[in-house]
């Protein structure tokens, strides 16, 4: 028996402050904090802030990744996705998997293209938000992620140090599956389910419960994870979007590695999407944000930017509002003929997903 860990687990009295200081000053990875990046992002945010009228929109940049779009569908959240094939991409929202069947408790679905924090694709189904402490509103979350080809997910402790074990489960569509559970003998207490897709990639579903939710609500979703897994379609798919940009396919490239992650869970019907396009031959990026008019993005197209380097403009139609901006300012729009010329090439396709397109950069 090694006495050292036992001694460490019994800190001397009155030492909380000293131990906090010791923890905060322990060796750490190099910091990635950048004042320059904050200035760039801050300038962009100042533009976007002036677009918002409802004041209920929160944009939180939390990681490098892809593009997030919260889609309004509840039970059939993947409207006629198109499998990607060889050739130039025209859709900024290409995802590795889409939800199929979902229980009634999950009402909204969002997808993100590009890579998440661990290089994984992302999707989230969310439950009806309910009030919590501090005037917050949140619902159950169900995360879907697809591992890279050849990547085997790790079975290890949680970030909080809780041990997890691989507990075998019935195959999903004939492929191996297992629970990630706190006990090696039973799936009881598990909140993560993994299985291997037909193409060999591992796929994972995890239930995420707000702190004030009861365990039973969490368990109801966990119980049907195998059924949800069976309905997940694993394939790289271009999700239809509610707008089309014509005549600029040679000038713009969908960006799938730079991100704006958007949060808007106060109302799952209040969806929105944020998409970036790089201007060919430059490092400039044009951002497009779109959503139903009553919700987001609210804007006054006549608003004047604070400085000549900030620019934004919006378009309304068919129940949608779309705003374009660039932190590089007016110069970013020059190769596409300017802001107004850019917006004239945008067609808004309405709020019914049946009318949306995966051929976003058309012609």
């Amino acid at each position, binding site marked *: 028996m090694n006495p050292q860990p036992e001694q460490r687990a019994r*800190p001397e009295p009155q030492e909380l402050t000293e131990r906090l200081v010791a923890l905060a000053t322990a*060796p750490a990875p190099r*910091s990635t904090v950048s004042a320059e990046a904050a200035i760039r992002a801050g300038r962009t945010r100042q533009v976007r802030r002036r677009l918002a009228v409802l004041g209920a929109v929160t944009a939180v940049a939390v990681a490098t990744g892809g593009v997030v779009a919260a889609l309004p569908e509840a039970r059939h959240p993947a409207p006629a996705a198109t499998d990607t094939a060889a050739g130039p991409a025209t859709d900024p929202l290409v995802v590795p998997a889409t939800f199929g069947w979902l229980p009634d408790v999950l009402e909204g679905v969002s997808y993100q293209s590009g890579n998440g924090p661990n290089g994984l694709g992302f999707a989230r189904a969310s439950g009806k938000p309910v009030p919590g402490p501090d005037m917050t509103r949140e619902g159950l979350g169900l995360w879907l992620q697809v591992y890279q080809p050849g990547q085997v997910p790790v079975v290890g402790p949680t970030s*909080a140090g809780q041990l997890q074990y691989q507990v075998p489960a019935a195959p999903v569509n004939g492929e191996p599956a297992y629970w990630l559970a706190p006990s090696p003998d039973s799936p009881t207490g598990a909140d993560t389910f993994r299985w291997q897709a037909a193409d060999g990639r591992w796929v994972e579903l995890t239930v995420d419960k707000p702190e004030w939710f009861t365990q039973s609500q969490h368990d109801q979703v966990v119980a049907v994870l195998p059924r949800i897994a069976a309905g997940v379609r694993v394939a790289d798919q271009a999700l239809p979007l509610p707008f089309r940009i014509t005549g600029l396919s040679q000038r713009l490239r969908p960006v799938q590695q730079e991100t704006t992650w958007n949060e808007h869970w106060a109302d799952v019907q209040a969806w929105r999407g944020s998409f970036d396009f790089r201007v060919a031959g430059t490092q400039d990026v044009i951002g497009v944000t779109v959503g139903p008019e009553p919700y987001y993005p609210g804007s006054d197209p006549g608003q004047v930017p604070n400085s000549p380097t900030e620019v934004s403009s919006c378009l309304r139609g068919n129940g949608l509002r779309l705003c374009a901006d660039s932190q590089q300012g007016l110069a970013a729009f020059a190769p596409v003929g300017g802001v107004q010329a850019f917006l004239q090439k945008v067609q808004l396709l309405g709020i019914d997903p049946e009318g949306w397109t995966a051929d976003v950069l058309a012609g």
Partner: protein
Amino acid sequence: MARTDRDTEFTEFVASRAGWLRSVAYLLCGDWHWADDLVQECITKLYTHWGRASRAENLDGYARRVLVNTFLAERRSGWGRWVARLRGEPGPELDHPVEPTDLDAALDLRQALAALPPRQRATVVLRYYCDLSVEQTAEALDCSAGNVKSQTSRGLGALRRQLDDSLAVLPEGSAG
């Protein structure tokens, strides 16, 4: 990007305070990479509101409040919790090797802090690391002094249980 006086002033502030903010962020979230994200988001918010922030009587306190609110907001959001969860899986790449005994001791407290609800954790960090009074903590968290006291009491109780019932701290109210 053209540098302005505002940018210069902001950059100097970040250069002098980023390390301190990062330490506070790490105690709040328990993950250095997430701490970087929290500080990055915090200073971006500060830049966005720099006109007001730079005139604040206590800019450090203003920045700390923005940081704590950013942390609490991300904990409330699904994306933020998920990113934290994922980031807890890989081990950090450290600049210097760490003695196992130090690492174990640090992990004890880190895990005990991680087990606290976010507002309790924020309360403990503000009071016992940032050395704020009950009233100052209440202002930072935008809640009542009574709420701070109850959150502190519960947080310390949970820490004691997590750390084998032997972590003694000053009685409630004496740190103010």
